[in-house]
């Protein structure tokens, strides 16, 4: 693979290109929230829906605006507002053990439903409850239905309990799309499904998806030009939310890819909150979502030690492209069904183990680190078993830390830092002691060729 577009050389130039994708994403998000705030006056319909396995192309085909309560919660976390929202929800009677995304969302709603850009969010015209890999989604929208009194379209996506998505399962989902989701959208918008528009969106999705996959796989290089977890959550932003299937997303991923290509060409490490990382000491695979209220602090704990995340499961939470899946205009509803079913939390434990073990091998990682979040049982159940199994299969050591998605009360910086540093020192100690069982990568940062190394220009 080689660069597809001309890029400027040198640090200055690279810095400018980097900024381009960040700025682009910022503009896209701002534009979307402005459109949402004007939706009512401009007569646009608004659909609330969930990220994992979402149906964004279908929503675009109906020209409705999607809004993702999970993203609002995550943004509230990053803006350090979730703590207050959660307390508000707890005052309303939601217990400490309820998912913090739900409570952050409910609290935000009660506080006036002002979105991350400071603009008021519109109420939904439809709640599209595609619940994939998370039972709590159903309860969440049950609560929202009481708040908004609007119709709900329900899409049940079967769990891949046996590790595969069968033809029957696919038909089951497609039938629901035909008999439940599309009719409800038609009813709310007052128009028929524009099939040509849907196919066009799916074709654009596939282009952007190719570029995203290329970017995520660039981490197979040593040093990795990206951080596939902390940087990765920015990279998945457009594709997992309102922009998949749009020209804006195609443009964003093209820009991002060219930026990463430059970093790769110059053998640069990822950009971190402390600037570019120049000493890749540890290559990690991370399982589980980040802790949003402490996102920067958490990231710095890694970058400060020269730890780069080369692959993460969280960046597969919206949809899973590793096995070659792309949205396909030739089989529109079927490919939407496949996308829904394939997202990471809808995969069974053996599949997740297989994926993580493969990441360790293919990305030449020194270890698997699990960030187990209190809120999300879809992620957390079985994680210790996953850890042991991946350790056994790959020979690299596993590490375990515990935080939460957006509840700041569950992030103890001293404790997390202590565990992370202990873990990294454990890797280091194992590496140093002769005869110790080694991971497949040996010492990190050596810059030697790996089995599936991407082409690096001199």
């Amino acid at each position: 693979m080689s660069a597809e577009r001309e890029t400027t050389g040198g640090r200055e130039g690279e810095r400018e290109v980097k900024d381009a994708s960040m700025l682009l994403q910022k503009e896209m998000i701002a534009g979307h929230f402005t459109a949402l705030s004007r939706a009512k006056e401009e007569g646009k319909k608004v659909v609330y829906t969930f990220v994992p396995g979402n149906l964004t192309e279908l929503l675009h085909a109906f020209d409705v605006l999607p809004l993702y309560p999970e993203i609002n919660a995550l943004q509230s976390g990053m803006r350090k507002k979730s703590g207050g929202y959660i307390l508000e929800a707890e005052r309303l009677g939601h217990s400490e053990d309820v998912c913090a995304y739900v409570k952050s969302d409910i609290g935000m709603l009660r506080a006036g439903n002002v979105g991350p850009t400071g603009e008021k969010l519109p109420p939904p015209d439809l709640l599209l409850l595609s619940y994939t890999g998370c039972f709590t989604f159903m309860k969440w929208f049950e609560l929202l239905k009481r708040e908004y009194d609007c119709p709900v379209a329900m899409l049940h996506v079967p769990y891949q309990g046996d590790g595969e998505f069968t033809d029957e399962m696919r038909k089951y989902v497609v039938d629901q799309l035909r008999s439940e989701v599309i009719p409800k959208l038609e009813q709310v918008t007052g128009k028929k499904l524009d099939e040509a528009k849907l196919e066009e969106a799916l074709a654009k999705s596939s282009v952007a998806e190719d570029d995203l996959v290329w970017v995520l796989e660039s981490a197979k290089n040593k040093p990795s030009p990206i951080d596939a977890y902390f940087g990765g959550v920015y990279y998945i932003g457009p594709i997992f939310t309102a922009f998949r299937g749009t020209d804006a997303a195609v443009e964003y991923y093209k820009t991002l890819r060219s930026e990463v290509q430059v970093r790769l060409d110059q053998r640069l490490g990822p950009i971190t909150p402390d600037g570019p990382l120049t000493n890749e000491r540890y290559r990690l695979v991370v399982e589980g979502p980040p802790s949003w209220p402490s996102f920067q602090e958490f990231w710095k704990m890694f970058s400060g030690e020269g730890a780069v995340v080369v692959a993460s499961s969280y960046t597969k939470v919206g949809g899973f492209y590793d096995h070659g899946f792309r949205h396909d205009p030739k089989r529109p509803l079927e490919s939407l069904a496949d996308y829904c079913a394939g997202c990471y939390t809808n995969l069974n434990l053996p599949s997740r183990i297989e994926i993580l073990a493969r990441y360790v091998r293919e990305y030449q990682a020194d270890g698997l680190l699990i960030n187990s979040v209190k809120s999300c049982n879809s992620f957390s159940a079985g994680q210790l078993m996953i850890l042991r199994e991946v350790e056994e299969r790959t020979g690299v050591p596993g590490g375990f830390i515990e935080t939460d998605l957006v509840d700041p009360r569950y992030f103890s910086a001293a404790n997390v830092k202590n565990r992370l540093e202990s873990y990294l020192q454990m890797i280091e100690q194992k590496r140093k002691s002769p005869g110790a069982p080694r991971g497949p990568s040996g010492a990190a940062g050596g810059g030697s060729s790996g089995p599936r190394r991407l082409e690096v220009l001199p």
Partner: protein
Amino acid sequence: MKAFLGIDLGSTTTKAVMMDEAGAILGRGITNSRSNYHLAADIARDEARVDARFTLLDRALEREGETGDEAVQFRKRLLHRFRKVQRLVQLASLREEAVKEAASARLSQYGDGLVPKVREIFEAMERDWRRPKLSVGPSSDFFRDQAAGDYGRLAEKHADRAVPFDALMSVFDKVIIVVENARMDLTFEGNIRVALAECLGGETPERRAKYEAAVAQAADAPLDLVRTIGTGYGRQTLPFAKDDIRSEILCHGLGAHLAFPRTATVLDIGGQDTKAIQVDDRGIVTSFQMNDRCAAGCGRYLGYIADEMNMGVHELGPLALESTRHVKINSTCTVFAGAELRDRLTMGQRREDILAGLHRAIILRAMALLARSGGIADEFTFTGGVANNPAAVKALRQLVVENYGERTLNISPSSIYTGAHGAAEFARRATQDVEA
């Protein structure tokens, strides 16, 4: 002689272990962390240095051929006298500060009567502290407790209408902190000869010469601190270079291995965290788990329980051993500990039974962490302050057998130093690596 130091800055206590080039422990020191890690680290190090000098004294006595009972008795006497000399140095400093404080403008309302009373109190204390039978511990640990107890008792006696008890205590409260934070010469080299002079009466001239020679050798031997490695919760706050810091997980793993080379699993219950660690046959950590942000069921929890019961923390275990009835405690939450305890006492349950239940609850929590870290393999080493608690050990033995079968359980009497020991060994190895 080259020496290596490990310092474990725990949440409750700070420990130091000094090691020689061959890896033998020269000395240990411990003090309260008192939310001032700098001072705590200095005091623990100084104490380890004093302890190291006594080890050098033992070696010197051996060289002089003095290994019999008499030498052992002399050594014991000398240590006791030395501790007393240290204590008197501290007391003199306290007295000086106290007299200054009593004469200060802050307390001028009490007129001329305050200073003489403070002097009288200190004279009485000094007389008392010079008595031969007075027992004293290591310098840092109990000075405040002992001074506060004696001063308070004497202040009560000396107080009158013109100079009330509160005024006298106000002087003490102000200056004890100053003295605790002041650096003074409490070293072996600076004080051992005073102590020695008081220990030689009745010895034959020949033996006196040997003792004096041995003490001189111990005091004058160069003790060159080559490298220090810091670990524990406070490690980030000390001016250690990044290379001089190790996680306490690694240090505990290695320390347990050094004490018991067949160690495969380590449980450490410290002041505010519990760790379950698996190590390989070289003491290298292969896996670990620790409690999350909540310190439930750690040493601090026992501290709260002891406060709540108005007991010393070291009395809890022995009392719990007297239990005859099984009480099941569900919460190891430190915040709710007092409430749970009072509830149960109200329900008529006996203190010893409740305490036995509490100890079991702590160990059950540790068992969950052990299971998560990979179980309990043979041999199993228990470290940290709570390892000195007999009721915790009893509950652990029982639960280990119930869940994993027979395991060799190792507990070292100096288990509290495990982390510092591991750190010292890291310091020694790091230096050898560089030299190699």
